[in-house]
């Protein structure tokens, strides 16, 4: 049935030519490797990174003032302006002195240097902890726990991020990123107030508006 019928008698019976049944698998392996590389790269590379943020809930009966009431000595307010500009002031806004608002940048020596400077203590401790983690092989959970404790220190700065409508999403993510880099655990994204907008405007005009206030008051 499945045998091939041979026509010329029984002379050659049993002396079929031995076929080499070995197949060369090299091209097959080549192709598989290629596909494998493709799938491996696709699965790991396509996963986007993400930042987790939690916002304060709205329905707690907090008034605007209460929410803003953080210890003035620890508070840093960052105002994200248009055209990739960023300003900051520490503590309470000082409407009298336009130089209380300072301009900085998203570059390494701008916002990050300022925040690292303010958060020196925590940053130093986190570094030590990292070293310890490498030396002792601490578990990730314990590291996270201890890092959290360090970051929650009473002296750590609290950053308030206020974005103007001119700023872009990128600015916001950059600012949040700086928080991450500078080990700042307490930060909040807060709606900008008129006072803050005024501060920026005053800064741009180099204090001209301050004079107006004074005149109005007199």
């Amino acid at each position, binding site marked *: 049935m499945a045998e091939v019928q041979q026509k010329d008698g029984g002379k050659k019976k049993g002396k079929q030519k031995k076929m080499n049944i070995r197949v060369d698998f090299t091209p097959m392996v080549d192709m598989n490797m290629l596909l494998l590389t493709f799938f491996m790269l696709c699965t790991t590379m396509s996963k986007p990174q993400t930042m987790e943020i939690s916002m304060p809930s709205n329905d707690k009966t907090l008034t605007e003032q209460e929410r803003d009431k953080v210890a003035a000595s620890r508070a840093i307010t960052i105002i994200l302006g248009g055209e990739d500009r960023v300003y900051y002031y520490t503590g309470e806004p000082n409407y009298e002195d336009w130089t209380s608002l300072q301009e900085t940048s998203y570059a390494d020596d701008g916002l990050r240097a300022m925040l690292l400077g303010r958060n020196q203590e925590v*940053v130093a401790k986190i570094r030590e902890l990292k070293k310890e983690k490498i030396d002792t092989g601490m578990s990730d959970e314990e590291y996270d726990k201890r890092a959290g404790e360090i970051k929650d220190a009473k002296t750590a700065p609290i950053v308030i991020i206020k974005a103007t*409508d*001119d700023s872009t999403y990128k600015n916001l993510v950059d600012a*949040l990123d700086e928080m991450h880099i500078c080990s700042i655990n307490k930060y909040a994204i807060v709606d900008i107030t008129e006072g803050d907008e005024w501060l920026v405007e005053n800064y741009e005009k180099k204090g001209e508006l301050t004079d107006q206030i004074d005149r109005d008051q007199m």
Partner: protein
Amino acid sequence: MPKVKVKRKSTAIDMTAMSDVTVLLLTFFMLTSTFVEPEPVQIAVPSSVSEIKIPETNVLQILVEADGRIFMGVDGPAIRVAMLRDVAEQYGYEFTDQELVNFQESAFFGVPLSQLKALLDLPLEDQEKIMVAQGTGVPIDSTANPSNEFKAWVKAARKANRDVRISIKAASNTPYSKIHLVMSSLQDIRENRYNLITTLKSVAGDF
């Protein structure tokens, strides 16, 4: 003296075993990988140093285009249909079974409910094109509650799947005012934890 016979060794290596291994690995990767649903619009996300990966399932994606249009997408066709049923009921729209099937076929949607019916009646392949070309995105409003369909959709997604994670994917040049609308809407419905999708940026120094 007989000549020394050098034994000829074949240089061909048996690749069968190798082939076995690669096929096995290939099967594994093919089975474990999930296909990324194509997004209707290209969005250039900003970069950050965050290294957390987004989970693959149970994600409600909110795409925010630079002009503020919002598209939403959920994985899982069943959840999509449940969402549509829920939202349609709230707003008093009715969809036929065929429309529901059409809705669950496309991963992303971004039209007001009033236009959704007309869109779903179109042939499947035209839907996305027309949605991107003419759609106005999911309506989002800071003040008027009833017209904020965005909130209704997010609520419906939460209802359909309790473990859903909200992730916002916004273009880096989106004005903050648009993002603010999304964030405050989420805040209003007590969705206070969400993810912002970014790409990885390398950073100098070891902070």
